[in-house]
Every structure is written in structure tokens, then in C-alpha cells.
């Protein structure tokens, strides 16, 4: 027996060595390549490829622009001059003018920007390439003070928390509905979520284009989109042996997924406000309220026939709505298209998983009611509601 154990231990050692062998070979080859080349063969023929991404331009005070720039390219880049609205301008940089790969700098420019008008910042590199960023509407970037925090807390409250809670007020009504109509509402929820999911994915893909190349925006989106439902599925599997998930779990999942979507939304709102992209239009908050109230309904549908405490309802509402506030705070202070794209992708992925779980709540079998005329109508109605309230928002 002792012999057998020793043999098996030796066998295991051999397996590990076998696993390490390719890595050792790779390392050895890399060292040889760097030491003896011919690395020159691959670089000499091409001009240096420079790539800078201006991730953010803020206007912290009258007569001041602050530019955050990231080198997402393969080689170091030297920022030689700065042009603002086609005029060469003095500036200071918090560090060396040469930015290493994946390095970042903050450039401060004393430029008398005009409130309400666009500002275009252009960086000229040592080889004369240019990298631009436009601030569509110049407004002073809010300082991270109490007023700003309160404003965005209120905004998140109005746009995220309040509508969700108003939606939750449908709970007593839902409890008295027949199974048939609950299924209709579940289908409606699926329609709403489908709309939000596609919206989140579209935002994620759009934002991924703004991510510095080295950070591979689209890959980030893919990670969030595929990774999230897989992780949620794995967690869900642990919570139950087989069959459909518990309604409470599905409701939590719905709230969580909507919350992630709203976090991305909050990030985008905060960043847009901070970078002066948004202008005044208070009546739109009303449209936004209507638009998001349906989210409350979506969260409730799975638990309509379950025993639910008031505490759980509050938790569901906060889970779905509060991330808007957090997102707006983060987005306003430190916006990064990469993170926002990732959050939108995670939201889209989570919604995908929620749709799977929702489908499981329907009676299975060949004559499954998922595709019954009433439920298909519900699905379409859900998407239509989002579309129509979306029109209100854009009005």
C-alpha cells in the first residue's frame, strides 16, 4: 500500500512537470528571442504606431481644462504640444511628456472656454500625430462637494429608486390575479428585460469603441456578457437541486440584473453631466419615471404568488434602484468608458440569465404555455411598453 502511494505520488509529480514543460519552453524561447533576436526584423520596417486615448476632459474652473489621457498603443508616446479649438496653448503635465505603454497623464490647460460652446482638445505628439477629444457643451464640471453628492443622490432616487418602488405597489393587485394572468405578466417582464438587455448590450458595444485599444473594449464586453450568466447559473445551481429556481431567487435575480443595468446608466449619466454633455430639460425626468416604473412590475411578477415580507420588497427595490445613485456618483467623479462598458455588459449578461430563469417558471412540457397567444402578447407588450415610454423620454 505504501509503495502504491509512493508510485501515485511520483506519477502526480510527473503530471505536474508535464504541465509546466511548455511554460518553461516558452519562457526559454522568450529569453533567447530578447537576447539574440532577431527582434529588429519585426520592428525596423514599420514606423512607430502611436495611440493615445483622451478618456476624459473636465472643466474644473473658469479658464481651466483638465485632460486625462491614456496610452493604449504598443509604444511610448510623447505629447509635444496641445491645441485647443485649433490654437496652440500652454499647459502643464503631471509627469514626463513621454507616456509609457498603458501609462496615463493629466494635462492642465489654462484655456478661457466659453460656457455653452464646444471645446476641442488636440494633443500633438513628437511625430506630429494628433489625438482629439471634444467637449460638446462647455459647462463647469461639478466639484465633488456635498451639493453634487446630494444632487446625484436625488437624481438616482428619482430615476431609479422611486419608480421601482412605485412599481412594487402593484403587489397587492398581483396577489389576486389568476395563474394565467401571472404568466402573462411574467411574459411582459421578459419583454421589458429583453428590451433593457439589448439596450445595455448596444451601449456596451458603443462604449467599447472608446476604450484604449490595449484594454480591448470588445473583449471586456464579451467577458461581462458571457461570464455573468455563467456565474449566476453556477450560483443558482448550488441553491437548488433541480428544476425551477425559487420565485424569490428569481425576483432577486431580476432586481440584481436591473440594478446592474441601472448602475451602467448611472455611470453614463454622471459622466455625461460631469463632462458637460447634458443640457437642461426637467420634464424629461417625468418620462424617465414612467419608463422605469415598469421595472418594479418586472421584479414583482416572479413572486406574485409567494409569501413575501415587506423587508424583502424594500431589498428588491433598493437592489434595482440604488445602483443608479452609486453609478452617478462614480461616473461624475471618475468616468472610464471601459468600466461603464463592462457594467453594461454585465447587466446585459445578467438579464440573459434572468430570461432563462423566467422561462423555467413556466410549466414545461410539449404543450408549454411559454408560447401561448396570451404570453406571446405579454412579451410583445413588454417590449412595446419600453418602446413607447422610451418615446416619452426622448420627447
Amino acid at each position: 500500500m505504501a509503495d502504491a502511494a509512493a508510485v501515485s505520488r511520483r506519477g502526480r509529480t510527473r503530471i505536474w512537470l508535464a504541465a509546466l514543460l511548455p511554460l518553461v519552453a516558452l519562457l526559454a524561447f522568450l529569453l533567447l528571442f530578447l537576447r539574440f533576436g532577431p527582434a529588429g526584423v519585426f520592428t525596423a520596417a514599420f514606423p512607430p504606431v502611436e495611440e493615445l486615448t483622451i478618456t476624459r476632459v473636465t472643466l474644473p474652473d473658469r479658464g481651466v481644462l483638465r485632460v486625462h489621457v491614456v496610452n493604449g498603443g504598443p509604444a511610448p508616446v510623447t505629447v509635444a504640444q496641445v491645441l485647443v479649438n485649433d490654437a496652440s496653448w500652454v499647459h502643464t503635465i503631471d509627469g514626463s511628456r513621454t507616456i509609457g505603454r498603458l501609462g496615463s497623464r493629466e494635462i492642465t490647460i489654462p484655456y478661457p472656454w466659453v460656457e455653452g460652446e464646444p471645446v476641442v482638445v488636440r494633443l500633438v505628439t513628437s511625430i506630429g500625430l494628433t489625438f482629439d477629444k471634444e467637449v460638446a457643451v462647455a459647462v463647469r464640471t461639478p466639484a465633488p462637494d456635498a451639493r453634487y453628492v446630494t444632487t446625484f443622490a436625488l437624481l438616482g432616487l428619482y430615476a431609479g429608486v422611486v419608480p421601482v418602488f412605485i412599481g412594487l405597489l402593484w403587489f397587492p393587485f398581483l396577489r389576486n390575479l389568476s395563474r394565467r394572468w401571472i404568466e402573462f405578466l411574467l411574459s411582459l417582464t421578459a419583454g421589458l428585460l429583453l428590451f433593457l438587455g439589448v439596450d445595455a448590450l448596444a451601449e456596451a458595444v458603443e462604449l467599447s469603441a472608446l476604450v484604449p485599444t490595449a484594454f480591448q473594449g470588445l473583449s471586456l464586453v464579451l467577458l461581462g456578457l458571457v461570464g455573468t450568466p455563467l456565474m449566476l447559473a453556477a450560483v443558482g445551481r448550488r441553491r437548488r437541486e433541480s428544476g425551477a429556481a425559487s420565485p424569490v431567487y428569481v425576483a432577486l435575480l431580476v432586481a440584481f440584473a436591473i440594478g446592474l443595468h441601472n448602475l451602467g446608466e448611472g455611470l453614463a449619466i454622471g459622466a455625461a453631466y460631469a463632462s458637460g454633455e447634458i443640457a437642461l430639460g426637467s420634464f424629461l425626468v417625468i418620462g424617465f419615471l414612467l419608463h422605469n416604473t415598469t421595472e418594479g412590475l418586472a421584479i414583482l411578477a416572479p413572486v406574485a404568488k409567494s409569501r413575501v415580507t415587506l423587508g424583502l420588497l424594500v431589498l428588491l427595490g433598493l437592489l434595482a434602484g440604488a445602483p443608479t445613485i452609486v453609478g452617478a456618483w462614480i461616473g461624475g467623479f471618475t468616468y472610464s468608458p471601459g468600466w461603464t462598458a463592462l457594467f453594461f455588459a454585465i447587466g446585459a449578461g445578467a438579464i440573459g440569465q434572468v430570461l432563462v430563469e423566467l422561462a423555467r417558471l413556466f410549466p414545461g412540457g410539449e404543450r408549454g404555455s411559454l408560447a401561448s397567444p396570451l404570453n406571446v402578447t405579454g412579451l410583445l407588450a413588454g417590449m412595446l411598453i419600453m418602446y413607447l415610454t422610451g418615446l416619452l423620454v426622448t420627447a
Partner: protein
Amino acid sequence: MSRRQAVKWGALGTVGLAAAGTACVQRGRPPAAGDTLKGGLAPGHGSHDDMMAVGELRRGSFDPTAFLTHFDYGRVSTLPSGQTLREYDIEATEFELEVAPGVFFPAWGYNGQVPGPTIRCTEGDRLRVHFTNSGTHPHTIHFHGFHPANMDGAFEVVAPGGSYTYEFDAAPFGLHLYHCHTVPLKRHIHKGLYGAFIIDPKEGRLPARELVMVMNAFDTNFDGENEIYAVNSVAFHYQKHPIELRLGEPVRAYVVNLTEFDPINSFHLHGNFYRLYRTGTNLTQHEFTDNVMLCQGERAILEFSYNHEGPFLFHAHQSEFAELGWMAMFVVRGPALG
């Protein structure tokens, strides 16, 4: 408008009041310490010192200050006929030109500089220009002026490694130019193959402080639009290093426009007017003005002197060109010249 955009707009309803409040507070802000620097202007509030390229040229870079007053009279000898012979060696090369501090433009130029050397002679001189093409593309030298067809630098293209000798009598007197006439023209001219060509009248001109100013520009990112404008290649050079003049000192500026991509350029002088001699081919003034517009290849001689001390700007009166580097300065100091 996308949904997110809509959401953003909606957001403003809530934050609008707060923003308006902040704006009001900002407008009423009392001046802080330091606001009075630079003649009452804080940075970012409109001082000319803010609109500028940062840093200094690298050592060994093309020096516009030296170029400004340098004239190449060639190797002078006398032909058996008694005619003055001026010989020049001009070589086309490829090199990096620092067009603003830290910004390096992959230039083609004559004798390793942009603009090329200012060729100067007197009307009637025999010119013999030995041209060598040390670049990787075919080039020529096309002189403006009177000469035989085969001395025109248009059809006798000089291949890389080749050479050609241009020989003709200098005429008519005036301010001219020379440049490469190989196609594509835009590329060859914009890369820097040009220079000023001065033919003095036989009787000469009155003594003056003489300055060569070639208005040029560089499309550093090759998108068909210029990023850098200048006189004599380096953005803001003479604003950072003003040209010193004496009170009452007669000044003669030889201004040539070789700006590519933009149809025109201009020369505006502050606090003064100049006598304008278009193309310098006539000794009587064309106009008394403080602003002249020149097409590409057009040139003019400007004569003036200052009766006031102090700093005076001169620049393109297209604000865009001025702001991208074609901004310069004279500093006039007393006492007046005898």
C-alpha cells in the same frame, strides 16, 4: 437620440437648479490672489502668453533666428566677359525638422534646412546652381524668373543619386522663390523643398535691416490640413525670441508665401504701416498698408521703421494661422539710430 442620451437629458432636470446656483456663485467670485499676474490676467483669461507652444527647440535644430538674416551670395568669380558668376551647391536631403518644440516633421529640404538657403544675387549675374539629389525620391529646383526651358526644373527630373546644373542670368530683379517641381507637387512642396530667391536691382536698394520671412505650414499628421503655421518653419519662434529693432531703424522684410493646402496667407504688422512692393519688381511702392494677402508663390517686399518703443506683434491676419504658430514679435528699443 438613444435611450441613454435621453436619460442624460432627463437627468438635467434634476441637476439644473444646482448647476444654475453654482454658476451664479462663480460669476460673483471676487478676484483671488494671483489674479493680477500678467497685466491683470490670470492664466486662462486671455493673455497672449497662454496661446503658445511650450518648451524650447532641441539643440542643433534649425534656427529661425539665424535664418532670418542669412543670405547666400554663392561662390563669386568673374567670367571672361566680365559678368559676375555666382555658384551654389544645393543638395536635396531627407531629415527630421523640429517645427514646434518637440514636434518632429519628416521633412525633405535643400541643404538640410527648411526653408532652403536664401539665394541672393544682383540682376544680370550668371548663376550656376549645382544640384544633387540625395533623397529617395526624384526632385528638381524650379526657379521663378527668366531662364531657358531646360533650366526650368519642371521636365528635367533628377533621380535619386543624380545631379543637374542650372545655369542662367539672374532676371528680373525682385523677390522670387525656388521650389521642387516634381509631382505630386503638394507633397514635394509641403515637405519643405523651397526657399527665397532675391535678385537685387543693379543700382541696389537703400541700406536697411534686412529680414527673410518665408510663410510656411506643416501638415504633421498628413490629413491634408496644416497643424503648424509659422514664418521660417518654427511655430511661435519669433514670439518667444522677438526680433530686436532700433527706434527709427529702416527695416526691409522679404516675405514669401509657401504655405501648402491653404489658398492664401497674410502679413499684418502692429502699430505701424509698411511700404509694400509686390514681387519687388518695381521700385515705387504699390501700397501703404499694414496687411497684405499673398497667394501661394506670391511674395512682397515690406519696408518700414518704428517710431515707438516696445513690443509689437506681427502675424497672419487669419486668426487660425496665427493661433497655430504664425505669431511673431518685434521689440523696438531706443535710443533712435543716428
